[in-house]
C-alpha cells in the first residue's frame, strides 16, 4: 500500500475508534450527568427539608434537624393553602377528566364534520403561554361585572371558585391529548359485539368501553392532578384572596421561606412518585391486557 492510502485507512480506523469511544463511554456518562442535573434541585429541596429551622430563611445550611418534619403544617396559613390546593386539584381533576374523556371518546370513535376545528381548539390552550390564559380569564372576570346577564358575585370577588374554573379549563386539553394517545386503535368491534349480543348502550359502556379506557382515564387524571396542584401562573391571576400551596411559597419567598415548605414539597413529591410506581406495577400486573385477552379468546373459538 502506498503512503497516502495507508494514511486514509489509519484515519478511518481512528475515526471509528473515536465513534466507538463516544458510543461506549461518553454517551452513557453524559446521560448519567444529564439525569443528575435534572435531579439535583429535587435532592436539594429534600435535603433542605431537614435543615435546622432557626434562621430567618431556608437558603443556607445550618445543621440537620427533624423539627419541621414533626410539624409539617406548623406555619400560619400553610395548612389552609395546602388544603385549598388539594381541593382545587381534586375537583378540577374530576371535572376536567369527565369533560376531556367525553371529547376523547368522540374524537377517537366517531367521524363527524368539524373535526379539525375541534382538534385545533384542543391544541390552542396548550400552545398559549400560561400567563395569557391567566390574564384572559381575569379580563373575563373583570368585565363580567358589567354584563347584565351575569348575576353579581358570580365571579367577583375572585376566590376558590375562579381558581377552579381556571384549572378545569387548562386541564381539559391535557386530558383529551392523553386519552387520544391511549385510545389509538380502540377495538370498536368489541362494543359492537356486546351490542349484537343484546347489551344496551349503558351496559356496553360500563362493561366493555369503560374497563378498556380505564388505564387511559387514570393516566389523564394523574396528569391533570399534578398539573393542577403545581400551577402558579394561572392561579395567581384568578385567585383573589384565596391562597394555594404554590401561592404560599411565592408569597413567603420575600419574607424567607419556612423549612416546612420543603417538607410539604417533599411529601407531595414522594406521593406522586409512589402513585406512578403503583400505576406502572398495576399495568404490568394486568398484562396481557384485556383487549389482547379477549382477542385471543376470540381467535381460539
Amino acid at each position, binding site marked *: 500500500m502506498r503512503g497516502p492510502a495507508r494514511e486514509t485507512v489509519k484515519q478511518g480506523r481512528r*475515526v471509528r475508534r473515536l*465513534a466507538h469511544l463516544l*458510543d461506549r463511554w461518553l*454517551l*452513557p456518562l453524559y*446521560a448519567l450527568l*444529564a*439525569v443528575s*442535573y*435534572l435531579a*439535583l*434541585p*429535587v435532592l*436539594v*429541596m429534600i435535603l*433542605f427539608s431537614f435543615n435546622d429551622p432557626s434562621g430567618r430563611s431556608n*437558603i*443556607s*445550611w445550618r445543621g440537620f434537624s427533624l423539627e419541621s418534619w414533626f410539624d409539617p403544617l406548623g406555619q400560619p396559613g400553610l395548612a389552609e393553602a395546602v388544603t385549598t390546593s388539594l381541593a382545587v386539584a381534586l375537583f378540577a381533576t374530576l371535572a376536567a377528566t369527565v369533560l376531556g374523556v367525553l371529547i376523547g371518546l*368522540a374524537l377517537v370513535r366517531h*367521524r*363527524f*364534520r368539524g*373535526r*379539525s376545528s375541534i*382538534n*385545533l*381548539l*384542543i*391544541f*390552542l390552550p396548550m*400552545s*398559549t*403561554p400560561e*400567563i395569557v*390564559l391567566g*390574564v*384572559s380569564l381575569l*379580563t*373575563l372576570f373583570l*368585565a363580567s361585572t358589567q354584563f347584565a346577564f351575569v348575576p353579581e358575585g358570580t365571579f367577583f370577588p375572585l376566590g376558590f371558585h375562579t381558581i377552579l*374554573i381556571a384549572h*378545569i*379549563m387548562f386541564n*381539559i386539553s391535557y386530558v383529551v*391529548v392523553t386519552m*387520544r394517545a391511549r385510545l389509538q386503535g380502540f377495538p370498536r368491534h368489541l362494543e359492537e359485539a356486546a*351490542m349484537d349480543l343484546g347489551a*344496551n348502550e349503558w351496559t356496553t359502556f360500563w362493561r366493555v368501553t369503560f374497563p378498556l379506557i380505564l388505564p387511559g382515564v387514570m393516566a389523564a387524571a394523574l396528569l391533570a392532578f399534578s398539573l393542577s396542584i*403545581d400551577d402558579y*401562573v394561572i392561579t395567581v391571576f384568578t385567585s383573589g384572596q384565596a391562597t394555594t*400551596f404554590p401561592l404560599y*411559597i*411565592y408569597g413567603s*419567598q420575600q419574607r424567607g421561606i419556612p423549612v416546612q415548605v420543603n417538607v410539604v*414539597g417533599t411529601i*407531595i*413529591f414522594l406521593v406522586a*412518585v409512589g402513585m*406512578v410506581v403503583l400505576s406502572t406495577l398495576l399495568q404490568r400486573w394486568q398484562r396481557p391486557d384485556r383487549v389482547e385477552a379477549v382477542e385471543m379468546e376470540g381467535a381460539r373459538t
Partner: protein
Amino acid sequence: MSWFRRHPTATAYLLLAPGIAYLAIFYLYPTLQMFLVSLWTGTVEAGYQLTFNFGIYPQALAQYSDHFLRSLLYGAIATLLTFLIGFPLAYFIAFRGGRYKSLLLFLVIAPFFTSFLLRTLSWRIIFADQGLALGPLKDLDLLPEEFRLTATPSAVIAGITYNFLPFMTLPLYVALERIPPNLLEAAEDLYAGTWQRFRRVTLPLALPGVFAGTLLTFIPAMGDFVNAELLGSPQSQMIGNVIQARFLRVSDYPTGAALSFILMAAILVGVFIYARVVGTEELTGGTS
C-alpha cells in the same frame, strides 16, 4: 336499534358539547375579552369604558420593547440549550437505554413531581453568593469574592433551560424511538458512515420531535416570569414580569391586556410560520 346507534354523528356532538362549550366560554371568549379590555380607558376607582383606544398598542410596544426583546432572546437561547442538552440524552435513552429505558424516562419526568417554584428556589440555594456551588470555590480563592450567579441574565436563562428540559427531551425521545432499526441498518449496508447515517437518516426522522420540543419549550419560555423574578434582577425582567405587574400591582388593566394580546398574537403567528416551514400535523393530532 337504539337512537345512539342510528345517529352516530349526533352522538359525537353530544359527547363533545359540554367540554367544547366550556372551552368556548372560558378559553375562546376570554381571549376576545382580553382584546376588548386592552381598548378600555379609565382607572380602577372611576371605572373603565370601552373607548377603542387602539393607540395603546404602539404605546405599549414602544415602552416595553426591551422586555419583549429580552423574552425573545432568553427564550431562544434557552430553547437552543435544551435542544443541545436534551438531544444526546434522548438519543441515549432511545437507542442505548436497554433495560434501563423506563428508569431513565422516569428520571427525566421525575422533576415534574416537585413544585416548579421549589425547584427554581433550589437553584437559588445552589447558586447563592455563598451557597453550595460558589461558597467552597470562593473559600479556596478560586473565584473572586464579588462573583455572583444569581441576579444575572445567565441565571434566568439557566433557570428556564432547566425548567423546560424535559419538555424538549421527551418529544425528541418519542421521535427517535419510532425510527425503525432496519432503516439504520439499510444506511449501514449502503456504506454510510456513522456520521453520515446520523445526519442523513436519524436527524431528519427526528424532526417531528424537534418541532414539538421547540414549541413546548419556546412558548412557555417566552411567557415565563417566575425565573426572571426568582433568579434575575430588575435588569433582566421579561415581558411576563411587566404583564404581571400591570395587572396585580398597579391595576393598569388595559396596558397589561394589550401586552398579553401582543404576546399571544406574536406566538400564534410564529407557530403558524414554523409549522409551515417544518411542517408536521402530529402535534395537533392530525386532521382527518
